[in-house]
C-alpha cells in the first residue's frame, strides 16, 4: 500500500463521515485562521509604524537637551545652541552628516478672519525640510535670506491649510499666530496620520522669526541631524556626539544631551510590536492546540467505531504499519483540510482594514501554518493510530 493509496483511503474515510469531519476540521481551521490573521495584523501594524517613522525623515538623528533617565540630577545641563547646530554641519569633523537643523517649537493659535486653528509652530532652518522629509506641494520653501532677516513667513501642513483656508488657495495669504502676522509661502505635501498624531498639522517658520516673536532665546528644543545614508547612520551619530561632547565639555557619564536615531526608534518599536504579535500568535496557537485535541478525540472515536473494520483489515493481511499509516494519514489529511480553509478565511479577513492598519500576510506564517498542521495531525493522530494498529485481530473482529 503506497502513500497515494493511503491518502486516498484516508480521504474516503473522511468523506464517509462528512459532518464529523467538518466539525473536526473546524477547530484546526479556526486555529490556523487566527494565527495567520493575528500575525498579519501584527505585521500590518509594524508596516504602518515603520512607514510613519520613515516619513519623519530618512536617516534622522534627533538630539535633545538634558540628561538621560537615571542620570545624576545635579549634573549641569548646557543649552543646545545655534552654534552647536552650526558645528554639526561641519563637513570635516562630521563627514557623514548630510545636514543639521535646530528646531524650536511653540504652541500657537492662528487666526484668519473668523477661523482659528490651534497647533504648534516649528522654527527652524531651511535645511530642515530635507532633513525631515517635508516637501512643499504648492508654493515655495522659505530661504536662508528669510531666516537671516527674520521674515514673518511660514510653510503650513495640509491639515492647517484645509482647516483655515478650505478650498481657497493659501499661498500669499496672511495668517495671525498668537497675534503675529505671517505670510504663507507654501503648503507641504501630505504625510498622513500615524501613531504619532497628525503629521500634517504643522506650521514651519524661520527659527529667527519664531525666537524673535514667540519663544525668546532659550535652549533649542532639538537639533535634527540627517545621516548621508542608512549605512552611515551610526557613524554620523558618533561624529555628532563627539562634536557635542567636545563643545559641552562632557563625556559619556556627564553627557547633557540625548540622541535618538530613527534606526533605534524603529528597533524599539519593532521589538514591542514583535512581542505583541508573538503574544497574539501564542493565544491563537492555543486554539490550534485545542483543535489538535479535537482531532485526537475524533480519531479515538473513529478507532473505536471502526474496531471491527480494523479487525477485518488485519484478518485479510493489513500489517501494523499499514493500519498505523491509514489512521495517521487520515489525521493529517483532516488537519490539512482545516489548514487550507483556515488559510482561505485568513485571506478573506485580512482584506479588511482595521484602525488604519492594513494586515499583511507573511509567507512564513502560511508555510508555518501548513507545517504545524501536519505536525498536529502526526502528533495528535499518533495515539489513536497506535491504538488502532496494536488492536489484536480476534478481539477487533469480535467487537460489535
Amino acid at each position: 500500500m503506497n502513500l497515494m493509496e493511503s491518502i486516498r483511503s484516508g480521504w474516503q474515510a473522511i468523506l464517509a463521515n462528512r459532518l464529523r469531519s467538518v466539525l473536526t476540521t473546524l477547530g484546526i481551521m479556526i486555529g490556523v485562521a487566527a494565527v495567520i490573521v493575528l500575525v498579519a495584523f501584527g505585521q500590518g501594524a509594524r508596516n504602518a509604524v515603520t512607514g510613519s517613522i520613515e516619513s519623519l525623515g530618512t536617516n534622522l538623528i534627533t538630539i535633545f537637551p538634558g540628561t538621560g533617565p537615571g542620570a545624576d540630577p545635579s549634573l549641569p545641563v548646557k543649552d543646545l545652541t545655534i552654534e552647536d547646530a552650526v558645528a554639526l554641519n561641519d563637513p570635516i569633523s562630521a563627514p557623514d552628516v548630510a545636514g543639521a537643523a535646530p528646531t524650536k517649537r511653540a504652541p500657537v493659535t492662528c487666526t484668519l478672519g473668523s477661523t482659528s486653528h490651534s497647533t504648534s509652530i516649528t522654527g527652524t532652518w531651511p535645511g530642515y525640510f530635507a532633513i525631515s522629509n517635508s516637501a512643499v506641494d504648492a508654493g515655495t520653501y522659505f530661504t536662508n535670506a528669510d531666516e537671516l532677516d527674520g521674515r514673518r513667513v511660514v510653510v503650513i501642513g495640509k491639515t492647517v491649510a484645509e482647516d483655515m483656508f478650505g478650498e481657497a488657495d493659501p499661498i500669499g495669504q496672511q495668517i495671525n499666530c498668537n497675534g503675529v502676522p505671517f505670510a504663507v509661502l507654501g503648503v507641504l505635501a501630505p504625510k498622513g496620520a500615524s501613531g504619532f498624531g497628525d503629521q500634517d498639522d504643522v506650521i514651519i517658520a524661520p527659527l529667527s522669526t519664531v525666537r524673535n516673536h514667540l519663544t525668546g532665546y532659550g535652549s533649542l528644543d532639538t537639533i535634527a541631524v540627517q545621516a548621508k545614508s542608512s549605512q552611515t547612520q551610526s557613524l554620523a551619530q558618533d561624529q555628532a556626539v563627539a562634536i557635542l561632547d567636545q563643545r559641552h565639555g562632557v563625556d559619556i557619564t556627564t553627557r547633557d544631551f540625548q540622541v535618538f536615531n530613527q534606526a533605534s526608534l524603529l528597533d524599539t518599536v519593532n521589538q514591542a510590536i514583535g512581542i505583541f504579535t508573538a503574544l497574539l500568535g501564542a493565544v491563537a496557537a492555543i486554539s490550534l492546540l485545542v483543535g489538535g485535541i479535537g482531532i485526537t478525540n475524533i480519531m479515538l472515536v473513529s478507532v473505536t467505531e471502526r474496531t471491527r473494520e480494523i479487525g477485518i483489515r488485519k484478518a485479510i493481511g493489513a500489517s501494523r504499519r499499514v493500519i498505523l499509516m491509514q489512521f495517521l494519514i487520515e489525521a493529517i489529511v483532516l488537519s490539512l483540510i482545516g489548514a487550507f480553509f483556515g488559510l482561505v478565511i485568513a485571506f478573506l479577513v485580512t482584506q479588511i482594514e482595521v484602525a488604519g492598519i492594513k494586515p499583511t500576510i507573511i509567507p512564513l506564517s502560511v508555510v508555518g501554518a501548513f507545517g504545524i498542521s501536519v505536525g498536529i495531525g502526526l502528533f495528535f493522530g499518533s495515539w489513536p493510530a497506535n491504538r488502532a494498529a496494536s488492536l489484536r485481530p480476534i478481539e477487533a473482529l469480535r467487537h460489535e
Partner: protein
Amino acid sequence: MTQGTPVLDLVDIRKIYGAGDAEVRALDGVSLTVNTGDFVAIMGASGSGKSTLMNIIGALDVATTGEYHLDGIDINSLDEDALSIVRNRKIGFIFQSFNLIPRTSALANVELPLAYRGVRRGERRERAQAALAAVGLADRMHHRPNELSGGQQQRVAVARALVAQPSLLLADEPTGNLDSHATADVLSLLDAMHAEGRTIVMITHEDDVAAHAQRVVTLRDGRVSDDRRNR
C-alpha cells in the same frame, strides 16, 4: 485425489485461557492434517472449541502449545508482522457476518487484499473484477455493502477470499446468516471452488452444510471426537 504436502498440519494443539482454578482448555490436544484440494468441515456444539481452532488455523491467534505448519511454514514461530503476511498470502477468510468494509464499494473490498500485498492498481482492478464476475456479481461492483443483500455480500466476501489465490480458504459458518436460497448460492460457490482444486476448511454446526464437504471433523470439549469422510 493425489495427496501432496499437507496444506494444514496441526500437531497436539492446545489453547489454554486463564490459570489455576480458572483455567479453561479451549483446545486440548487437537491434531489435524488437511491435504491440498481437500474440503473439510469442522463441526461441533458451541463451546467445543471450533472457533478457537478457526482463529488458530487463520493465524489470528497463536496456540499455547503444539505445532502448526501452514504450507510448510511454522506459524507459531512468527511475529505479528509475519502473521499478517501469512494471512494475506496463504489464507482467504469467509466470515459468518460477511465482514466487508462498510461504506466501501464491493470492488474496493475485493481489491483490498491485493492492495496490502502491493499489487499495482491496474492489475488489482482487473483481478478484483474477474473475481467478482466469477461469483456472479459483475453488475454489482460499485455497490456498497449496505446496498447488497446478505447473499450478495457473502459472495463479495468469497470473491475477496479468492482474489489473492490463497493456499487455504477458511470459512467460518459461511451460511449462518443467510436464508436457504442464499445458502444454496454460497454452498454451490464453495463446491465449485472445491471442484477447481482449492483447499477449503469450513466451520459449521449444520449437518446439511457439512454434507457438502469431503471430510467432516467433529470437535468435542476441545478434542477431535470424530473424523470421517463423506461418500
